[in-house]
């Protein structure tokens, strides 16, 4: 059995300009239908990566697809599992308990309502009291990066970023690249030392 580490998308904070294009295309690619213009969107945008903007740093944060995924380990209904080297949420099973949110060290997990044809999907039984009286409560589900599973072009965020700030990291490849760089560095310094 070959050992393959899960890939993940990570942003370069030195390149990111904070334009949120990644969030927009992420949300659009995960809609229940194809939307090309803003006017065709009739529900809130629900991206699976989240721009962080503080005085010190600007970059989106998204799921690391951890090998020992805390979110999956704590999920009481086994709604989170690893499929084909990706940590994925099964929205149909998720009960919205938020344990995964608590467990994720990156804050990469969100809890959001689901929409179909512009209408929020309601729970079958549970109701809630509001100003308008007792109404059905919307279904809230765990929402996080799925690496655009099934999308031929790969993750939408990487493709759309105008600053080329996002990259799909294949950990072993990245490691080998760094090994080579370190070796070359070492060779250079040895040369210097010898001369």
């Amino acid at each position, binding site marked *: 059995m070959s050992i393959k580490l899960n890939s993940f998308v990570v942003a370069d904070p030195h390149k990111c*300009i*904070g*334009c*949120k*294009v990644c*969030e*927009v*295309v992420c949300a*659009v690619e995960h809609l229940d*239908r*194809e*939307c*090309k*213009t*803003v*006017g*065709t*969107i*009739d*529900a*809130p*945008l*629900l991206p699976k990566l989240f*721009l962080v*903007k503080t005085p010190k740093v*600007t970059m989106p944060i998204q799921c690391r697809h951890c090998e020992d995924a805390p979110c999956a380990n704590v999920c009481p209904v086994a709604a989170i599992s690893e499929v084909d080297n990706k940590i994925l949420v099964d929205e149909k099973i998720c009960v919205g308990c938020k344990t995964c949110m608590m467990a994720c060290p990156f804050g990469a997990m*969100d809890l*959001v309502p689901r929409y179909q044809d*512009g209408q929020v999907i309601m729970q079958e039984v549970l109701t809630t009291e509001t100003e308008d009286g007792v109404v059905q409560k919307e279904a809230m589900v765990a929402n996080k990066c799925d690496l655009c599973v099934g999308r031929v072009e790969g993750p939408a965020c990487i*493709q*759309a970023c*105008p600053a080329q700030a996002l990259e799909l990291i294949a950990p072993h490849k990245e490691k080998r690249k760094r090994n080579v760089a370190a070796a070359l560095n070492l060779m250079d310094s040895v040369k210097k030392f010898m001369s």
Partner: protein
Amino acid sequence: MIEIDQELCTGCRRCNEVCPVDAIEGLQGAPQQINHDKCVNCGQCVQICSVYASAFDEDISPREEKIQERGLLTTVKEPLFAAYYQGQARGAQQMLSDSNVYTMVQCAPAVRMAIGEEFGMLLGSLTPGKLAAALRKLGFDRIYDTNFAADLAIMEEGSELIERVTTNGVLPMFTSCCPAWVKFVEQQYPELIPHLSSCKSPQQMAGAMFKTYGAKVDGVAATKVCSVAVMPCTCKQFEAKRSEMADSGQRDVDLVLTTRELAYLIKAAGIDFTTLREEGFDKPMGTYTGAGNIFGATGGVMEAAVRTGYELITKEAIPDVNLECIRGGEGVRRTSVTVGDLELKLVVVAGLKHVIPLLEAVKAGKADFHFMEVMTCPLGCISGGGQPKILWPGQREHAVTSRKESIYEHDRNLKVRKSHENPEIKKIYKNFLGEPLGHESHHLLHTTYQARR
């Protein structure tokens, strides 16, 4: 009229990259401001802005407040972005529910090859029939067309060019149908104002005709007429509000909607645009030619003017009505057309930033051309700031080229393709205006400009 929401803007400054006049000011990473003295309201910033208001951000004011602030219909569900245009859709909705007003609407050429996109149709879908049907369903009393007024503009502007060329008038002449370009000349190159054609834009010609000729045709008082323009443009509202634009005795155009805003109104009225049966525009001012229609793409005004100018001067039919040499892309296109004894030298500029070297040449007396068309937006009105906003940055180019293909397809398929052959144009000169550049035309269809510095 173009604003940047200070709560939302992250200071990515992508808007600054597309602003043709450097009107967007601010530090990288900090909310940007618009310098309204420089801004020409082209709305390219509105098109590119991708910083949206998250539904879960508790640090920003609620969506309802933003909807109010932006003058949007409360029924609008789409996400809100930092750079926005303050429209007039609410006013239009109110006006349509007022039974005391007589409403006349006009649609710019580029609206009919883009509005379908807002209802999930393919990018660049050509839908003039559905557009007319939707406007009728919304309750407009007369469904007229800016394309008709574009034909009228050609009659006037073509005649003006001929007059300038033959009487040693101020040359080169500049087109005047793009209000952002006109504002730019007024504020940055006021000394070149005499080069601007005195013709109003088709929107304003239509407005002036609605409240005079149109009111007369329908036997209604001009004071009862409310004239609405649907435009791909975020600067047309500014143009309609100019003090000069009241030659009919009233405001020539009362309200301006963008393509996006018309889509809001259609959705709010519960009209299913995609399944509408095609209908026609109303006579007399809804009758148009292919020449009027191509105004929506860069080079279109020039091509339409040459189709007519050639025949008016030589009294012969133009050898080929398709003037491919004029149809350019973003940037500067130079070409020439032989008309009788004259070699007419033409320049077409798409994208306002490309015009500056040419204006400097004109200023220095080194201009070697007769006529220059300038459109502020990258490929003309089809890429206007009021057009449907494309979600994927990579699809923007495809959208604009598809709209362009549709505009020329529509031109090819129209029976009449030269403005001077439009039967209703012939009639309007015979019955109402007299002749191009005549007394009535001069009063209703021509205008003056103001130095803004």
